[in-house]
């Protein structure tokens, strides 16, 4: 089915999320929608799916104008969506999930489960999905859950499928399998809109690429375009994609972690007997698919986890059991994974956020009094140094863009005397331009002799920054390998397969 969007405009208050966007997806085409976070991709797709009503423009399917009052209309017209966060009910079986919302009943209002099962089997066989209709969704790996979403869409005869950032939660192998599925769907005549900001995937699978920036279509590109070309289209200027860094000047082991185990409130071992060390002047990147214990590991390092066993010694001092306050005072800088929730107070000004973890004592507090002049001076200096784009230091942090918010967090953490930097997902939800800046800062920190632990689920980031890479899977360390380990090896490790011997030897 051919999908055409003409002049779609959508505004929220003064913000123009979509500004006259034109997009044509031919039948049997994989069309990539590329753009930074906040460029307006998701808004556009929500308009297409009937979740938002456009302020202007029209949607055409096979040259017929459509008007969608809600997702129901969109589904009936043949549009299916695979959301980034699966819309599945974990305690239902695959077949039950697939029939949800379109329950067919037999006499007496009984659910027609056999029909749903047959449908799942039929679609599953057609595309080689290998999905058991009677499996509980909760028991399935993430990649398979995503296939259930696809089956759900296909079972409603979707002929335009929208994939919204589908690879964010997948291992590299699962991503490859998804790509294969997408190609198969394309062969069968389904049109696919693939939303992403990962350049590699785009070039691998896309037939055509439309780049969106600040709510506008800024260009079309062919899949043969280089990463640099695509990135500069996305950002609007030339971007340096690789991080310039010299060989590390390794010092003594600074952070030594032995047998670290974190137990969550329901008694699961979320971090299981993890041991590693980081030397001065070294970046250890912790890789792994989201949710394999990396978050808890970083939280344990700064004392945020209540049930921690094992030892973490920084420069010989045991950190386990200390309060967050004393760990921060010991010189640990922490960039939390979720900056809005854990890193910043949105209602506070930039200046106030810059003193958030030094709310007691020098230099911002004297005799219980806030030193507002000192703080203002400090804030002006840091805003300039970290290139935080803001009208003033009194601006509330919640009003800044993601990249600028992260710069505020980074400015705060790096302006203390550090003996260790722990950065979790430092560039999540950050624009490409700021990523470049943040990476440079992290490498500078390393070069000043501070040991750095970076947690990232993005392989690009891991390989760009790491001197060594530790891969975690289900709370355990799969292996610690050199920074130049090939992506395929890392991908296998992220799926839980131990690395080959030469990798392990490093």
């Amino acid at each position, binding site marked *: 089915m051919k999908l055409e969007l003409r002049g779609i405009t959508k505004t*929220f208050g003064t913000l123009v999320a979509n500004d006259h966007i034109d997009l044509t997806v031919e039948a049997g085409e994989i069309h990539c929608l590329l753009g930074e976070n906040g460029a307006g991709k998701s808004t556009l797709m929500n308009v297409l799916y009937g979740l938002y009503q456009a302020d202007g423009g029209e949607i055409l399917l096979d*040259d017929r104008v459509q008007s969608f009052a809600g997702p129901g209309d969109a589904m009936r017209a043949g549009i299916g969506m695979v959301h980034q966060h699966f819309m599945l009910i974990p305690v239902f079986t695959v077949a039950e999930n697939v029939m949800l919302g379109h329950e067919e009943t037999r006499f007496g209002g009984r659910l027609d489960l056999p029909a749903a099962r047959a449908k799942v089997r039929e679609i599953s066989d057609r595309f080689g999905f290998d999905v058991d209709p009677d499996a509980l969704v909760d028991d399935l790996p993430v990649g398979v859950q995503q296939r259930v979403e696809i089956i759900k869409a296909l079972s409603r005869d979707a002929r335009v499928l929208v994939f919204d950032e589908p690879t964010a939660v997948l291992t590299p192998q699962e991503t490859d399998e998804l790509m294969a599925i997408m190609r198969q769907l394309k062969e069968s005549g389904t049109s696919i809109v693939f939303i992403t900001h990962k350049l590699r995937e785009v070039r691998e699978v896309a037939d055509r690429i439309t780049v969106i920036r600040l709510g506008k279509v800024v260009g079309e590109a062919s899949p043969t375009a280089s990463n640099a070309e695509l990135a500069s289209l996305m950002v609007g200027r030339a971007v340096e994609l690789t991080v310039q860094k010299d060989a590390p000047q390794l010092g003594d082991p600074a952070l030594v972690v032995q047998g670290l185990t974190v137990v969550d409130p329901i008694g699961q071992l979320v971090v299981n007997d993890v041991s590693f060390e980081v030397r001065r002047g070294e970046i250890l990147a912790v890789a792994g698919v989201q949710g394999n214990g990396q978050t808890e590991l970083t939280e344990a390092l700064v004392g945020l986890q*209540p049930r921690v066993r094992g030892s973490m010694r920084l420069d010989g001092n045991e950190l386990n059991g200390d309060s967050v306050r004393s760990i921060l005072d010991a010189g640990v800088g922490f960039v939390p994974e979720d900056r809005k929730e854990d890193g910043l107070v949105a*209602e506070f000004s930039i200046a106030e956020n810059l003193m958030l973890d030094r*709310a007691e004592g020098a230099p911002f507090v004297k005799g219980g009094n806030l030193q507002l002049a000192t703080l203002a001076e400090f804030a002006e200096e840091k805003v300039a140094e970290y290139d935080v784009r803001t009208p003033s230091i009194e601006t509330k942090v919640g009003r800044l863009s993601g990249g600028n918010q992260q710069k505020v967090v980074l400015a705060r953490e790096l302006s203390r005397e550090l003996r260790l930097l722990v950065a979790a997902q430092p560039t999540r939800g950050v624009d490409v331009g700021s990523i470049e800046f943040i990476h440079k800062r992290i490498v500078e920190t390393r070069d000043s002799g501070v040991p750095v632990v970076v947690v990232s689920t993005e392989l690009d980031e891991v390989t760009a920054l790491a001197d060594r890479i530790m891969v975690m899977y289900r709370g355990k360390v799969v292996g610690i390998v050199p920074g130049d380990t090939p992506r395929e090896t890392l991908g296998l490790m992220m799926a839980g397969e131990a690395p080959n011997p030469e990798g392990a030897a490093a």
Partner: protein
Amino acid sequence: MSAQGPSDPDVAVETGSQVPPAEPVRRAEPEPEPESRWHRALREVATGNAIISVLAVVLALIVGAIMIAFTDERVQAASGYFFARPGDTFVAIWESVSGAYSAFFQGSIYNFRRPDFAAGIRPLTETLTFATPLIAAGLGVALAFRVGMFNIGGRGQMLMASAAAGWVAFSFDLPFGVHMFVALLAGLLAGALWAGIAGLLKARTGAHEVIVTIMLNYVALYLVTWMLRTPGLLQAPGSNNPKTPPMKDTAIFPAILGDGYNLHFGFLLAIASVVLVWWILDRSSLGFQFRAVGENPNAARVAGINVKAMYVYAMLISGALIGLAGVSQVLGTVTTGFSSGIDAGIGFDAITVALLGRSTPWGVLAAGILFGAFKAGGFAMQAAEGVPIDIVLVVQSLIVLFIAAPPLVRAIFRLPAPGSASRRPRPNVTKEVEPK
């Protein structure tokens, strides 16, 4: 489409700056307490726009005027022959409303019927006397609000503070000044500790402060009632009434404008508290941590702030401020001995005052004085014009209602919603296209 909902454009705008973390594997968060929707709504109400507060008062006064007109007998009589002589009705309405509000003004600010200034200004001092406990208790509630807590235990904290201060004031013999100071201190301490129980339970066990403070109100009420009935504790010797003996002169707050006026030293303490709370919230390290915890307890915890300790400290200070309201009642306003009704609903009015004052110290000062005026003027209105005192209560309640509904106030006064664009509707035109 991540975290966006169809009717939630704000969220859609926000997703620009952050990709919500995807969590395939169940991950139990070690958060202290995720902020509930109710709490957030409460906080927004508590820290709303200043103009909304002013307009809410205006609106409430207008509705109050309508009610005064409706309840006035002359208006009712005149409206009986409305179609014969409609002018009579309007004259009656005008007379009743203007009469009531002018009586209100003369009862709360300045009485023109008195010959000299000293007597004429007396209503204003009455207003300030009524305002004293409202300001103090309002500050207490506001401070707790700013730390993200809803202290509705004002009644219990006032009762405990009154009991402690009163007991010191009538049963000890101490020199002038010292006695007052000791009684004051005892009251502040009792209020602080009573609220501190709620703070401690919240910090230690996660018990919700709303439930705990409400329940502690009852505990305090019946505890004080029991003490008032028990000879040797609070009951006046040789009496069977649940009432204390009068306070000793050495402990009573001195009148600050001379004996002709009721305004007492407690008012100065309330003003000093305003400055103190302003300093705490806006200028001190403690207040910075308070506000950080109030706005985002997770970020505060990650930044090394002891969130649990902040809950306890905030409740202690909040309780002491509300305790000051209780002390000012027994040592300043009702010095002839008190019963279990000494709190006079101030603990609950304080919530309104804090809301109206947007939980800022200066706002609370203004709101407290306004509510003091309601009390002083309400009596005058009833005495002079026969307007039921209940109308004042209705006006007070309407103020809360309007403050709680900023969009309503904005709609009535046609104020722009914050962050909204022009109201000009965009044409949503769909052109017809011929199918091929």
